């Protein structure tokens, strides 16, 4: 039970990081991006690729299973993931945004998600991969609860990122513009702000968060080309549960989804775990479509 709680919080914090990016793009760019989860996979694999190129130029930093090389690789992954997001926006979403129905962009993101996943499969192959072969020893915190140092790191980093993002959104001009853009794009332009720049930064931030969450997923679970596909439903459930556009909501939503997935194993066979987010999603849509904290922009029509 205790262990399931701890695992749930870990999964939840990874889902939360991905869901923050998703909720930002859903709120600000105003469409449900099915390709967002693939940015997570992309980020995770770009870090793997970067590691392969740089080699482990320094050993792990105890008590963690990783060291400077992975931190460096993550930075490279963040840059490459942001680049991919901007490229997709430029080549696909922008042209479609201007002259077709809103759902066409959502559908295009669905097609793009398939393409990204297959390109990763093509480059890296389909089998599971790991950042490090070092075995990590779990520390027994109390009877019935063991935690890995990497897991503690993951939690801490998630927390730090959430606080930093909150400060960014509240205190900077760009953060202010992003919140304003979610409410009324034309009025943002009238205020003298080039929304194209704000949109670009939204992609960069969403993609950076996706890359970090991908690396953390790879660090604590394993790397597979399907991780994004499998995270898609939990991410959407978390974002909608927390209220679209609401950063803290996404974090709480992520934790709830992660905990529910992990605790569900106590009641139903583990094979059904992946369906848990779907039932959370359905319940939210039936009961409280704006999410528990209310959406930035109306969820209900």
């Amino acid at each position: 039970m205790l262990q399931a709680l701890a695992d749930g919080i870990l999964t939840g914090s990874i889902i939360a990081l991905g869901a923050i990016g998703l909720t930002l793009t859903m709120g600000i760019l105003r469409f449900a991006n099915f390709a967002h989860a693939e940015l997570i996979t992309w980020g995770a694999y770009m870090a793997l690729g970067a590691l392969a190129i740089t080699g482990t130029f320094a050993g792990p930093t105890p008590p963690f299973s990783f060291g400077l090389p992975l931190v460096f690789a993550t930075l490279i992954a963040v840059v490459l993931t942001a680049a991919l997001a901007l490229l997709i926006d430029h080549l696909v979403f922008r042209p479609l945004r201007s002259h077709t129905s809103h759902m066409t962009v959502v559908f295009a993101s669905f097609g793009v998600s398939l393409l990204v996943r297959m390109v990763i499969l093509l480059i890296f192959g389909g089998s599971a991969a790991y950042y490090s072969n070092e075995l990590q020893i779990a520390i027994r915190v109390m009877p019935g609860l063991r935690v890995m140092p990497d897991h503690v790191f993951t939690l801490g980093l998630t927390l730090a990122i959430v606080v930093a993002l909150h400060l960014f959104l509240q205190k900077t001009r760009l953060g202010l513009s992003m919140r304003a853009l979610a409410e009324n794009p034309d009025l943002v332009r009238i205020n003298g702000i080039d929304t194209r720049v704000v949109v670009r930064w939204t992609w960069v931030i969403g993609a950076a968060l996706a890359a970090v969450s991908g690396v953390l997923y790879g660090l604590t679970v394993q790397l597979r080309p399907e991780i994004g596909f499998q995270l898609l439903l939990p991410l959407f459930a978390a974002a909608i549960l927390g209220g679209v556009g609401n950063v803290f909501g996404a974090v709480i939503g992520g934790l709830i989804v992660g905990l529910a997935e992990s605790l569900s194993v106590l009641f139903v066979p583990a094979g059904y775990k992946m369906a848990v987010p779907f039932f959370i999603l359905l319940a939210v849509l039936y009961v409280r479509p704006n999410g528990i904290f209310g959406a930035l922009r109306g969820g209900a029509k």
Partner: protein
Amino acid sequence: MSGYLAYLVFFLIVALTYSIVVMGLNLQWGYTGLFNAGVVGFFAIGAYGTAILTGPDRPELIGGFALPFPAGVVGGMILAALAALLVGLATLRLREEYLAISTFGIAISIQLIGLNFDALTGGAQGLTGIPRPLFSTFGTPGAYNLFYLCLVGTITAIVFAALQVALQSPWGRLLKAIREDETAAASLGKNPALVRLQAFVLGSTLMGLAGGLYVGFIGYVSPLDFLPLLTFQIWAMLIVGGSGNNRGAIVGAVGVWALWTMSGFAISRLLPVHYQSQGGAIQVIIIGLLIVLTLLFRPRGLIGEAQSVSRHAR
């Protein structure tokens, strides 16, 4: 020579079965603007439903009711309709995206049930020995396949004709009106959410029908036949054929399925053995590119939307 002919018959049966799915999707997306991201889920529900209802009784299974084939297919369609109702009721009054996300979720859930609920679905092995309708009447597999092609062809034609009638009816015009100007339609006292729900459920029911026909032909169900990839393939068929046009839907189904089959052959011939798994990825990339490039450069598809729709928009 007859080997090729036999293959052509086999190919056409599958392609026409998919074309019924594409017409169902066309009703949802092409005519109503609803994004179904879990097509494969409704297809699978029809297939599993039919298999469970018509399959032979076996002690270890919940199903196996040995019902006649038509009853099994209708049962599968009803189950698909109920699933559509479940997500439709939850989402059709909300932001459009929510339907897409929920349908994606239902497809995942169906896949999990297929894989894990052994007592109902046979798990990873699936259900085998599903009786093929009138199989004993035809002596050879070749003759039987020809019969089945006629059966699927007839049903495809009936679905096509019925949809044409429905789309010309006041209900069909209402559908169009709602898609083009929801507020105007609502102000005429129509309930757009209800009409959208009807179109969505009807489209999903057609997907269930196709699933039943599929099972009747191959005689077993296995989770491997209902991978998420199928959703993308069906979408590619619709987009390439041109949404909002059922003739295009059929052409797209046959064309894309031919492309898929031929690219599979080409890859298995040309690529060295240890690159075969990558070859599969290339095949899928073709599907993804087909969707994205058609959206960008030929948004009306190969055949394009029926004229009346765009005239209405002027």
